[in-house]
């Protein structure tokens, strides 16, 4: 018998909180992206935990799709970041406030 599911859910909540706080307090766009990955991993851990607790394979299937979406998101997001840095090197998240018109 493995460790109780509530411990895994607690750990996932802690990871999600660290990722969310990091997303809010960091200014570097790349580090903010990494914090988003942390939050996605916390959600994945929750999915797998409930898959085990409820004895349902659908939780693991959801994690599979989350992985694919995370990969696509990182590819497009890093493309956007590269194109932003090409126009203005050293830009932080606060400098990118002109997305209008």
């Amino acid at each position: 018998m493995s460790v109780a599911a509530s411990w895994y859910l607690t750990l996932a909540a802690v990871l999600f909180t660290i990722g969310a706080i990091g997303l809010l307090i960091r200014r570097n766009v790349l580090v903010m992206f990494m914090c988003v990955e942390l939050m996605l991993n916390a959600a994945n851990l929750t999915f797998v935990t409930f898959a085990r607790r409820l004895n349902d394979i659908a939780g693991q299937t959801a994690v599979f799709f989350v992985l694919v979406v995370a990969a696509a998101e990182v590819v497009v997001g890093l493309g956007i970041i590269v194109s932003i840095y090409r126009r203005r090197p050293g830009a932080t998240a606060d400098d990118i406030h002109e997305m209008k018109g």
Partner: protein
Amino acid sequence: MTHTLAATIPDAITFVIAGAICVLGAFGVVLARNPVHSALMLVMTLFGVAVLFVEENAQFLAAVQVIVYAGAIVVLFLFVIMLLGVDQREAIQRDPLPAQRPVAIVVGLLGLTEVLLLARGQWPTGAKSVSGAIGSPADNVGLLGRSIFTTYLLAFEVTSALLVLAVVGAVVLARRPRRVVGDNGSPQGASSEPDDNVDGPTASEPDGAEAGTDDGGQGDGEPAGGLADSEVTGP
């Protein structure tokens, strides 16, 4: 509590070690000054999560976690960090929202407290095995594949379309438009525009290329001259 007591000692030790690795890596991602260190700490967290996946009878997802996340996504992060320059510290002399950081920490901790209080309660769901049981560790890949290719086949197909769109979007985003380079390249030699730093790398690349060709031309000229001299002095 009975479940906790029923957990075997190796399982508990594995959970504690992997959970500590995850939390330390997560703090490292947030607190590291250097983005490269953040990426490496992210790898640490991903490995910890993979260990927890194995512990929770999700062997295929643990392998995919290591291969896709640590092998592809973090390498992509590192490529972009190295491409854009490592030493871009966060210089925040002018902080537009000074109260954002303490408020973010307080709100995050409040959310964590709320989730932990909820985790102590009763679980409202009692559903079991809607789309198949997890099965033994040997059956994990087969059951997951059967679930993906039967129950969630439409989502799988949409996923493939999403991947194609992401690839096309990345290519379109990362493509350097030739028109902009041609427009900004010509006035830069005549007068220094205020936004010359927009394409500083593109302006330096042709210079380097020209210098390289000049050097190559001189290099080609000198051996030719030497050969001519030798041919002259030879006879």
